[in-house]
């Protein structure tokens, strides 16, 4: 679907949803759910329980803020990903504060016991949250969407060399943040 057709379609759907049309919302939901859930699961480092929570909150936020969605500025899927990233960021901050409180409580009880560490999935989630938007976008295109360098270059109007270089920098940034 070309850009103008996509914008027009999403504009109509948005108007219908704002008018209270449940069918329009169901259409949008069914089209976008799988891709959004896959994105959230990837960002959560594979943790289904956290992904479920984030996905629910993202959809509820989306339906409440649907008036703010502007089809001219980007697709509905991109808008949802932005909402999901914000929801996940709040979740990670909450978990981080919770984890620090638990750590402080446990170390107060037994000073000699080993410090608990955030689990693997949490670290991946935190790292993906910390990388820049551009790095996250290219990593998503490569690892979640499964696109080749040539395909990413074609979609982004860049040369394959530029994408290769960006991917390398993105991986490097991920590694450095993960090891911190």
């Amino acid at each position: 679907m070309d850009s103008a057709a996509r914008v027009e379609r999403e504009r109509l759907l948005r108007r219908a949803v704002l008018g209270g049309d449940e069918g329009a919302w169901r259409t949008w939901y069914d089209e976008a759910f799988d891709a959004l859930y896959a994105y959230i699961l990837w960002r959560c480092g594979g943790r289904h329980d956290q992904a479920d929570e984030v996905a629910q909150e993202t959809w509820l936020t989306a339906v409440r803020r649907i008036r703010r969605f502007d089809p001219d500025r980007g697709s509905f899927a991109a808008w949802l990903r932005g909402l999901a990233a914000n929801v996940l960021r709040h979740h990670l901050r909450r978990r981080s504060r919770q984890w620090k409180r638990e750590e402080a409580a446990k170390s107060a009880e037994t000073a000699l016991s080993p410090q608990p560490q955030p689990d693997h999935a949490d670290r991946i989630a935190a790292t993906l949250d910390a990388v820049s938007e551009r790095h996250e976008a290219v990593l998503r295109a490569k690892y979640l969407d499964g696109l080749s360098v040539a395909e990413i270059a074609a979609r982004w109007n860049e040369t394959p060399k530029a994408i290769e270089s960006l991917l390398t920098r993105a991986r490097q940034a991920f590694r450095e943040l993960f090891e911190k």
Partner: protein
Amino acid sequence: MTLGPNDHGQCDEPVDALLRTGTGPCGVSPIRETTLARTIGVIRFRRHVRKCILAASLAGCYAAGLATAGLQTRARHEAPSPQAARSPSPGPRGLPRPAVAPARLSREEIVRRDADRSLLERGDVKKATRQYALYLKLASADQRASSPEQDSWLLMALKDARSRELKHDRVKQD
């Protein structure tokens, strides 16, 4: 956890493995239907709120209309002031009639005033026409010609018709 050395331009396996975590088929999500139901609930609630606001606005407009009508009715039924009762009622076009004590009103003037009341207050055009016709029969030419600005539209029309009739009769005789 530390990762192996990074080879620029080559596949970074540990990082690749981390970045592939959470990819692959998700399966059927258990929250899909429950989340849909909750979001549809939000849409329904918003629709109800919109209907309530519309109903409240319509009710408000209706109440405003009733209040306006009530105020107008009250203004119409308000008793006239004593001064207004003493002074003579204005003529058909709102101009004040010359003050004449009731005892000194001639019969034709009384008939004319009755006709004015029939037309303006009761809207009885038929009765007013009969009364104006009687007045025109009783009144002298001078009386008929005096104060034309105080004539009602019906009296003006009848006078006009009467003068055309007379002109026509005169032409026929000639």
